[in-house]
């Protein structure tokens, strides 16, 4: 969708708002990989990606007619993704309280990444140490969202976003332990 102009995106969103299924499908196809990547960065669980991404897009289809500014679609979509992931992580935390020896330790082994997978492991480990809100902040920045857009997503000020982002980056650096070079 990066190559699509803002006008074309707004037109597509308007068609989707009128219930045009082809437009809704095009939006899903255009954003599915970015949303999946965001969900994975937020949860660190590959087995959650498909399910949570599906939840995000179902919410998108059901609520798109209430989106007043089609130009804000991307910010709105990633706000849905962020909130869906945070809800899931809250539920997971509650489940861990009531089922301490449940299935939380089960995870599908991650496939090796495009770069050194140890670097990826180090990043994932560091992200896992952060609060979900901070993880969301860093993932939104990586997603290409501006400070203003993030402020709108989080319903806060740009200054607050900058301060929180600074702290989140500090925390990430504290926990980031890149692999040894042998």
């Amino acid at each position, binding site marked *: 969708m990066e190559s699509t102009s803002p006008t074309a995106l707004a037109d597509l969103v308007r068609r989707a708002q009128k219930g045009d*299924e082809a437009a*809704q*499908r095009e939006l*899903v*196809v255009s954003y*599915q*990989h*970015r949303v*999946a*990547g*965001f*969900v*994975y*960065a937020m949860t660190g669980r*590959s087995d959650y*990606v*498909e399910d949570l*991404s*599906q939840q995000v*897009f*179902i919410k998108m*289809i*059901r609520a798109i007619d209430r989106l007043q500014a089609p130009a804000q679609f991307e910010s709105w979509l990633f706000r849905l993704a962020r909130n869906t992931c945070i809800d899931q992580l809250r539920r997971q935390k509650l489940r861990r309280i009531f089922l301490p020896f449940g299935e939380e330790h089960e995870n599908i082994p*991650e*496939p090796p*990444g*495009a*770069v050194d*997978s140890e*670097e*990826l492991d*180090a*990043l*994932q480990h*560091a992200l896992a140490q952060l609060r979900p809100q901070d993880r969301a902040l860093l993932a939104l920045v*990586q997603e290409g969202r501006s400070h203003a857009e993030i402020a709108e997503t989080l319903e806060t000020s740009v200054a607050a976003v900058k301060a929180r982002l600074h702290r989140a*980056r500090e925390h*990430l*650096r504290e926990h*980031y*332990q*890149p692999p*040894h*070079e*042998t």
Partner: protein
Amino acid sequence: MKPEEHAWQELQRRASAQLRGGFADRVVRTARGPQEDSWRALFSVGARQLRPGFAERVLRAARAAAEMPSLASQFALSAATAAVCLGAVLFVHHQTVEAADERNLAEWQAIVAVAEDDAAGL
């Protein structure tokens, strides 16, 4: 060389022997934090988790969800049912209490009449 200088050098030698290979590089990478390509790799691993036909599955699920009554409408139906039940219970209770009151009043009136007759007779 003074004995304490020798001792300092020995201390430094032993301390630096504790550092693993690539120490300086590791320090620099840690200080810089995760690099762009690590983030890109993270997002691309996430993107690869979607099975083919994802969009079709989403649209199917959205259609199925649209056909189901919404949570709000289910709640409204439950609330309406509860209100009707409560109304029925209150109505029956009111009727029962009213009937009992009328019965009691009639009985008291009969007692009063008997008492008045007795008083007049005396």
